[in-house]
């Protein structure tokens, strides 16, 4: 085996080639894990799975959250947060919503992609319920209030007093995206 796979033999070299091809694909999960661990890229995690105590300690800090709604490819749909800025205490559970209006005269499917800035805050923002967890089907000219329930945990770094949660809405009608 050792002789077979030495780098001076064609078989050894071909196995390096195969390994590197696989490594190219491995970069995808590695990148995702790297972004999750370091909190880079502002990616938020999925639905919050922990216990919901809904208890706020009396001396909890107050932070400001800004909401931004973007439309991918300059979609003509209307998409905006119900409330653009809110103040909340760490640990406090908040409910808000985003309004979307499908201006097309046909049914569409939309997908919202969240992002948090500064990136260091991403792992402290927990979504209990979010419209971004599912694809959103919209009928022709339908408008809809899409709900978001979230809280920010108490371990948010002290230097962060304001954070931004942005959603980019994409039209994925008919693209039949394979679930990754």
């Amino acid at each position: 085996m050792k002789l077979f796979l030495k780098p001076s033999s064609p078989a050894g070299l071909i196995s390096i080639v195969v390994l590197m091809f696989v490594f190219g694909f491995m970069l995808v999960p590695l990148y995702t894990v790297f972004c999750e661990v370091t909190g880079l890229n502002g990616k938020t995690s999925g639905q919050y799975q922990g216990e919901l105590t809904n208890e706020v300690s009396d001396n909890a800090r107050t932070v400001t959250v800004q909401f931004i709604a973007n439309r991918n490819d300059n979609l003509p749909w209307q998409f905006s947060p119900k409330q653009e800025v809110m103040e909340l205490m760490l640990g406090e559970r908040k409910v808000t919503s985003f309004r979307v209006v499908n201006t097309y005269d046909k049914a569409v499917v939309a997908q919202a992609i969240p992002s948090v800035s500064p990136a260091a805050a991403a792992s402290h923002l927990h979504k209990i319920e979010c419209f971004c967890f599912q694809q959103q089907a919209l009928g022709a000219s339908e408008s809809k209030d899409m709900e978001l329930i979230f809280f920010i945990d108490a371990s948010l770094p002290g230097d962060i007093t304001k954070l931004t949660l942005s959603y980019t809405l994409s039209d994925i009608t008919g693209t039949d995206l394979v679930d990754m």
Partner: protein
Amino acid sequence: MYEQTKTAHHGPAKGLMRWILTTNHKDIGTMYLVFSLMMFFIGGTMAFVIRAELFQPGLQLVRPEFFNQMTTMHGLIMVFGAVMPAFVGLANWQVPLMIGAPDMALPRLNNWSFWILPFAFLMLLSTLFMDGGAPNFGWTFYAPLSTTYAPPSVTFFIFAIHMMGISSIMGAINIIVTIFNMRTSGMDLMQMPMFVWTWLITAFLLIAVMPVLAAVVTMMLMDIHFGTSFFNAAGGGDPVLFQHVFWFFAHPEVYIMVLPAFGVVSQIIPAFSRKPLFGYASMVYATASIAILSFVVWAHHMFTVGLPLGGELFFMYSTMLIAIPTGVKVFNWISTMFKGSMTFETPMLFAIAFIVLFTIGGLSGLMLAIAPADFQYQDTYFVVAHFHYVLVPGSVFGIFAAVYYWLPKWCGNMYKESMGKLHFWLSIIGVNLTFFPMHFVGLAGMPRRIPDYALQFADFNMVTSIGAFLFGATQLLFVYNVIHTVRSGKKAPQKPWEGAEGLEWTVPSPAPYHTFTTPPAASEK
């Protein structure tokens, strides 16, 4: 052994089938070199279109869509069609001759890896005539430009890249196996000529990163046709991931295109300085460290995508670190020339120009490596100036130097020295006229890949275009000189260069169809 001696004196087969069926490293080397010369002119024609359009501000000759196709195809053809095959051709000719081997280790694989190329490039070039036109997203084919917004021909582009990749990988495997297993007795690794060393390291880079390129274009293919979302944010992917994977391939790729030129220069400078190469061992280690470092610097191409501060610093310092082994090489070449008994034949002129102009490209590379400054330079003509300085007077001059140096051995005739010198001087004027003004317009903010520009850049662009036309026309001299040499040049002696060393000069000129059927002694050089 007996069988071999009996057949050792047959010549090449006759007619077209000789070239299609050949497994001879010299035939295949020649085909690679001729192919790459053709691609050099096709890619050059595209550069001509670009420079003609940019001769004056405003849109005169081509539509912006076609201009984008030209910049994209020029880059792809020059990188994958001209520079890489030329170096593989040089390796095919020279590696067996320099290590005393009768042929490459895997001759049939060798035939195959060449013959894939014409089909790959035919497919790539055919996209120019398709509906929606050729790829227009730049040679770096960033997603989603190359996925969501790509012309339909992108699928042909992807398969062409796959075929080029397979060809390069097979070529690289062949070279590594040859170098490890077929050196003549008594030639240790640390006695190999520098050209062989640089190619060994280049070949390892190739087999390490070409599969990553294959992976990234496969992901593109799946995103376009099979509904995956590797690079599509709406499906949970990330376009920035594309840039990471691409540059993980493409940064080592730029060293793949220049390391063999380092090897060529390391052969030529000692020959015409009549001194052995200064610091052989440090040369080997410097080449190896450049290759290893090339894997950890990729994100310096992406300083403006929003990397965290730590990332910017890491990639800035690791990039600057590369200047150290590169500096070692440059100073070694200069020390080799120091107090040498130098003469300035055409190969030497190209080699010296390589050192000077490659260093200019290296220094602008250092400027680009400074993360805060890079925000100003990103996507401007300063970047274009930088990489053309390392690729044209770097890689391409290295190839010219190698051809002039070894042509007498390949065809048995001496090229016309006066015409070679004319080619050199016109080339060096053309190159600098073309690329030096790009530094200025780049620093002043002229963006790359745009068919029109602000009036303030008009004068420098006209100078650049005139330089480009001069440089392009000059290359016809080179073609004429080579054809003339092969057909009717003066007979060359076995060793046309007084100071040249190496096993390739122990065989007659032209090198017989079969050489070293019995291994030579390594000390014979």
